[in-house]
């Protein structure tokens, strides 16, 4: 039955407009590249090998990331300890780290000259060989475990405290809690978490190349580079990009097919205490998982910090100017992300059904885009009209926002749906519409995910290595570009300092926003 309890209002047009913008950014640019292409070549055997390898490594990476994220998220969900909030923030750090910095940290731990190899040397064991498929997986887990953990943790936190009280009252043991509460929750949350990590790994390229150990580890994104730079074959670049979209769309449909909507209902936001997990064995198990994940994720970060400290003094003044510029871009990107995500999520929720899903799908599209093709298409579209350099900052901000949008939608969507499920009728009956409803009901309920979204998009934008090199003006380089430039000029120490600054700023931005979203949100 069509429920038109309240008029569709301005939300749907605004959401559709946001979706259309993302669509234009992803597919419009692709079309522009294809349009400009002359006689394009078809796909060669090497391209097919790249497609196979991409799917293979992405599926494996995403599967591993999610599988490991489950025990970590569970441990975080059912333990209260001092510094838990800080740990959650820190554990999120690798995800927002620029790839180049993260790889340096990983190599400092697992490389041939890294800590692990050094520890094994006295035992007569040769250096660890990180290069190969296992290295790619290791790195992808490093970068994506934090996100997967976060998404799954949200699922855990979304189970109302009342359910656990009920479980405790019914004398549920840990196994019962798993069966009755956690498995249903995971069935709802896992496909989405898998999908997001899968999509990120599909477009991964520098990590795969560096740690993959050679041309065997070629992804579609690298094949796009090849078509574009090596042959200037725009047609093939567009075709490969389309294939990348296709792979992602197929994955999205599969994830959608296995997702079951959850119905945990609303709780009264009471602080969570878990009676079922009050065993020594479980406590040790959780501590072990948290300890391992902490070591795995934080030691490379610590090594980045250590290396960077010496370099801080070496950094030229230009680095600070670049840092300021990156901050501005990050803040604008974060605002634009929310400006796009909120109407999109609201409209998708309001429309519901297939249309709502389609709208959400449009918003998620950017994750599958090839930055190279998107940048090129945007350039082709804008160059005839304006000087691309004049648009460097707005374009970077909007593209960064589009890239953060999938995460934003994933974070906002379920909470929004839950809010509507629990409080929608009350709001309807009280005549809470439009802006008032947004202000009094929706936004307060969304505070937590909104803080997360703002922090995440700001941090991601901070670490972005010029999605759009064609628009970047090196005289106004952002911090990651400056970092890369320093490395390119042999100045590795200064670069390590810049990497530390970047790490601190990204984490700081994330922490401030995320924290703002949680403050007092509990009661």
């Amino acid at each position: 039955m069509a429920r038109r309890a309240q008029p569709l209002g301005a939300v749907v047009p605004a959401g559709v407009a946001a979706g259309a913008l993302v669509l234009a950014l992803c597919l419009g640019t692709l079309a522009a590249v294809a349009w400009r292409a002359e006689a394009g070549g078809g796909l060669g055997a090497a391209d097919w090998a790249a497609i196979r390898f991409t799917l293979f490594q992405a599926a494996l990476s995403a599967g591993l990331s999610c599988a490991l994220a489950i025990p970590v998220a569970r441990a975080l969900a059912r333990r209260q300890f001092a510094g838990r909030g800080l740990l959650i923030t820190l554990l999120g750090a690798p995800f927002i780290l620029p790839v180049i910095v993260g790889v340096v940290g990983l190599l400092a731990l697992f490389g041939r000259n890294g800590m692990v190899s050094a520890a094994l040397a006295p035992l007569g064991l040769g250096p660890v060989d990180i290069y190969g498929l296992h290295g790619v997986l290791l790195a992808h887990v490093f970068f994506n475990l934090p996100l997967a953990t976060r998404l799954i943790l949200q699922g855990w936190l979304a189970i109302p405290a009342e359910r656990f009280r009920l479980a405790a009252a019914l004398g549920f043991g840990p196994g019962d809690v798993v069966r009755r509460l956690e498995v249903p929750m995971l069935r709802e949350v896992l496909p989405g978490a898998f999908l997001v990590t899968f999509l990120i790994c599909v477009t991964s390229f520098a990590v795969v190349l560096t740690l993959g150990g050679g041309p065997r580890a070629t992804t579609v994104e690298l094949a796009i580079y090849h078509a574009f730079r090596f042959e200037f074959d725009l047609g093939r670049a567009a075709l490969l990009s389309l294939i990348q979209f296709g792979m992602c769309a197929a994955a999205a449909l599969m994830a959608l097919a296995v997702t079951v909507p959850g119905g945990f209902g609303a709780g009264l936001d009471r602080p969570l205490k878990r009676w079922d997990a009050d065993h020594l064995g479980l406590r040790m198990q959780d501590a072990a998982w948290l300890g391992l994940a902490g070591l795995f994720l934080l030691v490379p970060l610590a090594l980045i910090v250590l290396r960077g400290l010496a370099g801080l003094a070496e950094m030229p003044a230009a680095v600070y100017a670049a840092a300021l510029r990156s901050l501005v871009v990050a803040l604008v990107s974060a605002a634009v992300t929310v400006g796009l995500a909120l109407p999109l999520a609201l409209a998708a929720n309001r429309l519901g059904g297939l249309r709502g899903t389609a709208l959400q799908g449009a918003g998620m599209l950017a994750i599958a885009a090839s930055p190279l093709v998107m940048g090129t298409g945007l350039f082709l579209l804008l160059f005839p009209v304006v000087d691309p350099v004049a648009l460097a900052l707005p374009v970077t901000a909007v593209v960064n926002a589009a890239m953060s949008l999938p995460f934003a939608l994933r974070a906002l969507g379920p909470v929004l749906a839950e809010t509507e499920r629990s409080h929608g009728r009350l709001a309807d009956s009280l005549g809470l519409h439009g802006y008032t409803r947004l202000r009094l009901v929706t936004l307060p309920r969304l505070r937590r995910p909104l803080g997360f979204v703002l922090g995440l998009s700001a941090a991601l934008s901070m670490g972005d290595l010029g999605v759009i090199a064609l628009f970047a003006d090196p005289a106004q380089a952002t911090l990651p570009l400056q970092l890369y430039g320093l490395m390119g000029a042999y100045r590795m120490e200064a670069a390590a300092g810049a990497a530390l600054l970047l790490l601190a700023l990204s984490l700081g931005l994330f922490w401030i926003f995320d924290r703002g979203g949680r403050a007092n949100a509990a009661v």
Partner: protein
Amino acid sequence: MKFPIIATAVLGATTALADMPVLTVYTYDSFVADWGPGPQIETAFEEVCGCDLKFVGAGDGAALLARLQLEGVRTRADVVLGLDTNLTAAAAGTGLFAKHGIEAEFNLPVDWDDDMFLPFDWGYFAFVHDKTRLPDAPDSFEELIAAPDDLKVVIQDPRSSTPGLGLMLWVKAAYGARAPEIWAGLAPHVLTVTKGWSEAYGMFLDGEADMVLSYTTSPAYHLIAEGDDTKAAAPFDEGHYMQIEVAGRIASSEQPELAQSFLNFMLSDAFQSVIATTNWMYPAVTPEGGLPRGFETLITPETALIFAPGEAAKLREEALAEWRDGLSR
């Protein structure tokens, strides 16, 4: 729309100087960096030209060419600086470039005969190592192949990096039909392949690999800027592949005289004396004061290898397939 105002204030966008002609030079990013040649060259040229020299960075050399191909006749560039001989055939094919009409003597190991592009610097690709960690570096590809398997080199991908492309052509130039065999032999020694030079060189400095594909001039940076004489380039018996970086002017430019005078300036001491210690390459015309102290310590290969522009373009696909198949074993 408050943002552009704030952005302008915070970011200090450069304002065009009134009434001065503007010369737009497209180049690669690192040329324009604060520590690159760009700033000094901009100051020097603006002193003599009565113009505003505007550098526009566009990624690396290959990205620079792609940008030009995308822009076509509507390009805002007056001069393009930073292509190399692997790219000039395709660049000439765009039909965008004008003849330079300049006769000059170059200090290049090979003859220069190109009426469209002028070289501004050059270098040899080489494997760089740390003498304290690897005292007896291999002195040919074959010796590298014969070395124990735990001697590792890190190289770059020819599809995303200029040195990576250089190495691919180096092997092809030195070994021709034997290239597949050489790649297969090198495979166990290739620790990994990176996207760009920076990642590879960083990994080498961190001790991940014994050698890294770079330039014969790389040790000069460590010596001159850091007082560190432990880095050396290994001379290879087969000879070393060259990279010659060039510039050309755009035919449709509205500032043809300025563009031409920039090309002339490019070969003068004011430009050439900046190159060695900012771009860490050999100047195309050795300045009057000679090369900076420290450059005399660098190896000077006896054989310079390089494909003519058209030839390199023809060989590329085949060489890439050999590279990929050989290293995939």
